[in-house]
């Protein structure tokens, strides 16, 4: 047992917060998929204007899960870049003002653990509070942390989240590194692209998790992380993961894949598809979320809603329909910048 997921909330480039509608695709602008942010009426003006975008989104997504005055036994966040825009401002101030008279705003908002801290302040929560920053596996590591805590304390509830934002500096650097497309690429043409890079994205996804099955919408039954840039090694590891973690007689009903239109990464996704039989349904999500280090948290939000029967898979996500009849077991596979891979097995609760 890993943990049961009881509530989930997501602020993303799609209409995933408030009145949820994932059928209508919101497309990228200049190769970027910006999050659709709500008005955040629960934050007071002074707090809101100081928050970095990632803190706003993270705390904003967490609030509905804490609305019943719930106080989780821990707040565990995965983020790579966090408030990178504010971080950049702070570093520029150091140079611009010759290390003199630096203000606290950008420094506070530019550190990764600001998101979990802000949520703790809002929730008046002095329990376990940790932020994982392991690049493309930050969310998976946060989930593993939550799983270990649930294993020790099954009755406890934890807030688990994945958050990252688009920052001008990182976008420029990652584009130079070939991770974002240099030529214009429409969202609906992403998977036909044969060049390097993807669309840039951002978002915040929050879950409340525990060892209690009652009332859960989904179960995360297994998770693994792989560090390798060798397709054969990754394929073997995923194959072993499935055979070890999927109960005998069960099959993967849906592969939710992080395929992202980057020709350099495609062989990994192709290898994962080859492990499954040719009737297994395949759906993709990066045309919705864009590429960002904790995009797998967006995939987990989708998987929870699909196995929980809350949302149907929209047509624009489906790569192969296969013999999809019921959704009981979903494999989420995502890779970030070739070397980091994460697999999550999501089941009906």
């Amino acid at each position, binding site marked *: 047992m890993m943990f049961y997921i009881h509530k989930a909330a997501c602020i993303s480039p799609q209409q995933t917060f408030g009145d949820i509608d994932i059928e209508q695709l919101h497309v990228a602008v200049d190769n970027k998929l910006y999050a659709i942010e709500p008005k955040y009426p629960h934050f007071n*003006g*002074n707090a809101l*204007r*100081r928050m970095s975008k990632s803190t706003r989104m993270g705390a904003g997504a967490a609030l509905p899960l804490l609305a019943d005055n719930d106080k989780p036994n821990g707040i565990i966040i995965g983020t790579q870049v966090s408030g990178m825009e504010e971080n950049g401002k702070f570093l520029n101030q150091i140079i611009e*003002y010759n290390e*003199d*008279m*630096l*203000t*606290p*705003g950008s420094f506070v908002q530019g550190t990764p653990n600001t998101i979990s801290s802000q949520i703790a302040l809002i929730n008046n929560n002095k329990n376990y509070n940790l932020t994982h920053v392991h690049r493309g596996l930050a969310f998976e590591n946060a989930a593993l942390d939550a799983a270990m805590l649930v294993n020790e304390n099954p009755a406890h509830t934890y807030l688990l989240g994945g958050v990252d934002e688009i920052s001008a500096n990182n976008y420029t650097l990652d584009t130079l590194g070939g991770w974002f497309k240099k030529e214009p690429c429409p969202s609906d043409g992403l998977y036909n692209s044969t060049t390097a890079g993807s669309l840039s994205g951002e978002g915040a996804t929050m879950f409340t998790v525990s060892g209690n099955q009652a009332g859960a919408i989904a179960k995360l039954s297994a998770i693994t992380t792989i560090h390798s840039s060798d397709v054969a090694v990754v394929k073997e590891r995923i194959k072993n993961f499935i055979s070890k973690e999927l109960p005998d007689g069960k099959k993967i009903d849906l592969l939710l894949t992080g395929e992202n239109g980057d020709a350099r990464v495609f062989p990994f996704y192709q290898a994962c598809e080859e492990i499954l039989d040719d009737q297994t349904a395949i759906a993709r999500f990066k045309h919705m979320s864009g590429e960002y280090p904790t995009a797998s948290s967006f995939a987990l939000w989708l998987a929870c809603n699909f196995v929980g029967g809350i949302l149907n898979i929209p047509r624009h996500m489906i790569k192969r329909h296969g013999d999809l009849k019921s959704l009981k077991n979903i494999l989420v596979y995502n890779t970030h910048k070739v070397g980091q891979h994460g697999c999550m097995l999501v089941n009906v609760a």
Partner: protein
Amino acid sequence: MEIAELKEKLKVQIIQFLNLTDLTPADIKDDEPLFGDGLGLDSIDSLELIVLLKREYGVNIQDPKEGRKVLVDVNTMAAYIKEHGQK
């Protein structure tokens, strides 16, 4: 710089430094209190304003009592810059 021009520049800088994105310079009256019932700024903002005065005008405010007299409204800030500004 004329005092009227200085006040307009200050309003732009206050909005920029404090990220008051829902305001324009025209929304800030010269005699509108910066704290409390006026713009509703708080203690963290006062720190940002002190840094603004130092960075942009070379004005040092080291005595908290002096700061309370300077950071009242745009009028008092502009007058203090006129008297003590070094840029």
